[in-house]
């Protein structure tokens, strides 16, 4: 209850310091950022918070909006000024959330496998240092979770890779680093490409999410991977890891509407021959992602080019929402995209190696909700920290391989920023190169210093988050109206 303020003295107010203001801010902003889920699907919203609590990297993945506030708002914990930003570098095309597990493989229109960023839900326009610092922090957090001896080395490798790519592009031009299969991109990315080729060629996605019965392929409902038991204080639940369930009639109708609108958004509509888009079945996927854990996600099984079962297509349909706001950033015009589906697809095509890394990439807007559709093929395989941990334990990977991954990620990010067009129209390279050229090593040092200051904040916030879950449960104290 509020206390009557009879004194009206600033000294009284100054004494009214909150016990842990950061905890209050964290809990409030997490609720506000997820209010749409807390109101419309509280079960999944609670599961998202629970999923975020499993380790520090999961918490990092689920708190991009908090990171954005810390960098952009007055009083934010990450507002370290940069010497390498200019007005011209303030509207660069951003990945939005370029952390290591958002890197993966794609099989392009020419059949070649390449490495690219694979999650553009947060793609937007803003200062390039936002992405660079996010990548560096992600590398550091991965290093901590993997219990590496020197996580800071990953930060330096990522920043150095970024700077090297920018300088190389500025000097020689061209399209920048392309990480295609057949080249040497370090053990981890080489492994990712190898496994993508194997699993994609075997159509493993059909094995996982469909079954053949009586010469008909149907969608599968059930657990693909077992769930995870979660508990915090008195609160407990089972978290889905990879589970598919039958959609409700309304959801199935929605999937059909999305699929009807989707072909118009394809980069090359001829990729879908007549009859290829016939819907054979759909399932609702649970347990995927972290930031998008609670977002409705469906798998749609399509006929494919022929009646043969082997060429059936599996698409992922995911509802997409606004990216994390960058406080104070002015965009002219303020609404560069019609909706979030269009935004995600446009930025993915602009930032990836080719516009057809995913030939089936598209979007649709139905009933005010916006969806991104992609090929659910196992040719699209992401970097996975759990797999890296396993390989580290087996001795197949070592810490040096993580540094190479960080370096490659830095190169990749820089190429994305340099080649894609700023919101104002020009490519990003000239603006970034002009900002960096005077002291490239300084940008690396500055990025390392930023992570050195901010990583402890992230760690402490993770602890606060766990305490909040134990005290208030996975609703974080949100009072949902019936």
């Amino acid at each position, binding site marked *: 209850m509020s206390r009557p303020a009879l004194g009206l003295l600033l000294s009284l107010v100054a004494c009214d310091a909150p016990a842990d203001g950061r905890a209050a801010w964290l809990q409030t902003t997490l609720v506000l950022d997820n209010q749409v889920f807390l109101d419309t699907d509280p079960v999944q919203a609670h599961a998202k918070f629970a999923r975020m609590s499993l380790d520090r990297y999961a918490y990092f993945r689920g708190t991009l909006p908090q990171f954005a506030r810390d960098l952009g708002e007055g009083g934010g914990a990450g507002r370290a000024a940069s010497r390498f930003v200019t007005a011209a570098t303030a509207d660069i095309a951003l990945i939005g959330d370029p952390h290591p597990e958002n890197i993966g493989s794609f099989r392009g229109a020419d059949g070649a496998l390449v490495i690219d960023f694979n999650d553009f839900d947060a793609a937007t326009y803003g200062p390039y*240092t936002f992405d660079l610092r996010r990548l560096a922090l992600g590398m550091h957090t991965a290093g901590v979770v993997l219990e590496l001896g020197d996580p800071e080395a990953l930060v330096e490798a990522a920043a150095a890779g970024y700077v090297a790519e920018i300088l190389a592009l500025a000097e020689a031009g061209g399209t920048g680093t392309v990480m295609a299969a057949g080249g040497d991109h370090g053990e981890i990315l080489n492994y990712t490409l190898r496994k993508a080729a194997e699993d994609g060629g075997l159509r493993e996605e059909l094995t996982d999410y469909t079954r053949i019965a009586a010469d008909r392929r149907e969608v599968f409902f059930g657990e693909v991977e077992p769930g995870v038991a979660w508990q915090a204080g008195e609160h407990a639940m089972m978290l889905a890891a990879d589970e598919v369930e039958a959609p409700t009639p309304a959801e199935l109708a929605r999937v059909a509407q999305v699929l009807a609108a989707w072909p118009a958004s394809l980069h090359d509509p001829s990729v879908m021959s007549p009859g290829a888009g016939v819907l054979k079945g759909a399932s609702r996927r649970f347990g995927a992602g972290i930031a998008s854990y609670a977002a409705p996600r469906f798998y749609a099984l399509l006929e494919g080019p022929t009646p043969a079962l082997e060429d059936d297509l599996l698409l992922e349909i995911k509802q997409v929402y606004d990216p994390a706001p960058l*406080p104070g950033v002015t965009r002219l015009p303020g609404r560069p995209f019609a909706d979030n589906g269009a935004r995600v697809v446009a930025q993915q095509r602009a930032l990836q190696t080719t516009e057809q890394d995913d030939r089936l990439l598209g979007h649709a807007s139905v009933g005010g909700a916006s969806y991104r559709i992609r090929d659910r093929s196992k040719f699209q395989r992401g970097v996975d920290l759990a797999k890296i941990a396993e390989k580290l334990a087996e001795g197949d990977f070592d810490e040096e391989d993580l540094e190479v991954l960080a370096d490659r990620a830095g190169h990749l990010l820089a190429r994305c920023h340099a080649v894609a067009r700023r919101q104002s129209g020009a490519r990003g390279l000239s603006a970034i190169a002009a900002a960096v050229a005077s002291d490239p090593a300084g940008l690396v040092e500055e990025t390392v210093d930023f992570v050195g200051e901010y990583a402890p904040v992230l760690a402490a916030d993770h602890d606060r988050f766990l305490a909040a879950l134990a005290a208030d449960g996975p609703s974080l104290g949100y009072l949902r109206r019936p």
Partner: protein
Amino acid sequence: MTLFLAFVLQSPPGPAEPLQAPEVAAEEPTEAVVEPGEPVGAVVAEPVREAALAVPAQRAAPVAVAESLTAGERAALRRAARRELLLDPGEVLQNQWPSTPYCNLDPRGKDVCMTMDSELFAGFRHSVLGGGRKFSEFTLDRAELGTQLWWKPHWRFDTGVALRVEAVRSAGPQSLIGIDGNSLVMRLGQAYGHGAVHLGPIDLGVRFGQIPERWIEELEKGYDTRGVVALASERVGMFDRADLGASLTLSGWKGRFDLDAAFTNGEGRAQQELNHGKNTTLIATVRPWRTRHARGPIGLALHGMYRDGSIGVAVDGVGPGRNHRAGGAISFQSPWAFGGVEYVRAFGLSARPDLVSDTVGAWASAYALQPWVGLTAKYDFVRQDLATTGSQAHVATAAVFSDVFGYQFRNRRRVRLYAGYQYEGYGPAAGPVPGAPEAANTHRFMLQLTAQGLFRVL
């Protein structure tokens, strides 16, 4: 107690005689052109006006009804008298709640009126930002429609209901989720019941519902150029224009002093209550100098406020984050010029309980050639985070303006056009890109239209 009841229940002042028409025969309403500066309906009300000028402005003029007038003519005279707003058409209408409503309700009680008002701020803006970015657009900064019903069941008591709808973009800032793209939609800005008790020189008023922010309401009495830029504290988000709650106002000697106490959820217009805490706000306003000129009131007002607030979800064992405010202001109004200074400090802002931020705003506006040419200037300075050096931002605005109607009709009808320039600048650690304040520094060239009106419909 007996004396109090006797005071309350005493007979209202006013003549015991029936309404009298003026000695001049009433004229039928004509289609005569209304000259600029003349209130609409003046022709119809002319016979009544002579008698109205002879009595205090707060009371409806008693009209002598000559025996030669027909019943219809007498009814027309009464309707004309009722259609006039509270004050004489030559008087400046002011927001004097709870002392006085907008309508000339019968001082003897048992009367009713209804007003309708609208407000529009529309403009054209050419913005130039760092990095070679330029952009032009037409904007609609405000479009509101309000209505108020007033009843006066007893001569010491009036009550009523106020509703106000406002236009707002369906997608929030940086959001792509809107209605039919990003259409302008109407939402409820204010909705509350109100009542006021008049006890001699003391007026006691209460509001209940989605009530206006009283700090903004008080300061804007001395701020004449809201159409081009908001008060500093509103612009930086220290106050929302309305919130769910209740307020109590004690006003003495027709606004010589006002004491306001408000109790609100604290989440503003666009969010439901998230915690068990409530905002408690106290505002004191004193008008030590107030005089009446033939062209309108002149006054100096001093304002002070404190808010004990909370925002966001409660953290177990600690409670929700603090969201306090403390501030003061001086404002001056006259028929020729307005001016003022406002200072507000926030203890907790943007859901950050630890953040301390402050802002100061100064404004001045004056007619150079009334009503055709006026000048306005405003300067707002904000320190986004007192703990961070270089976190200041400032906005400087200068404009010329021209009115269609004069100052006299300020709150009844206004059509004003501004042409001006605004600069928004950031310190090295302020703005969205620390280290590159030029990324957010903005030059704006503006044409802004303010159109507002208030009239009585019942």
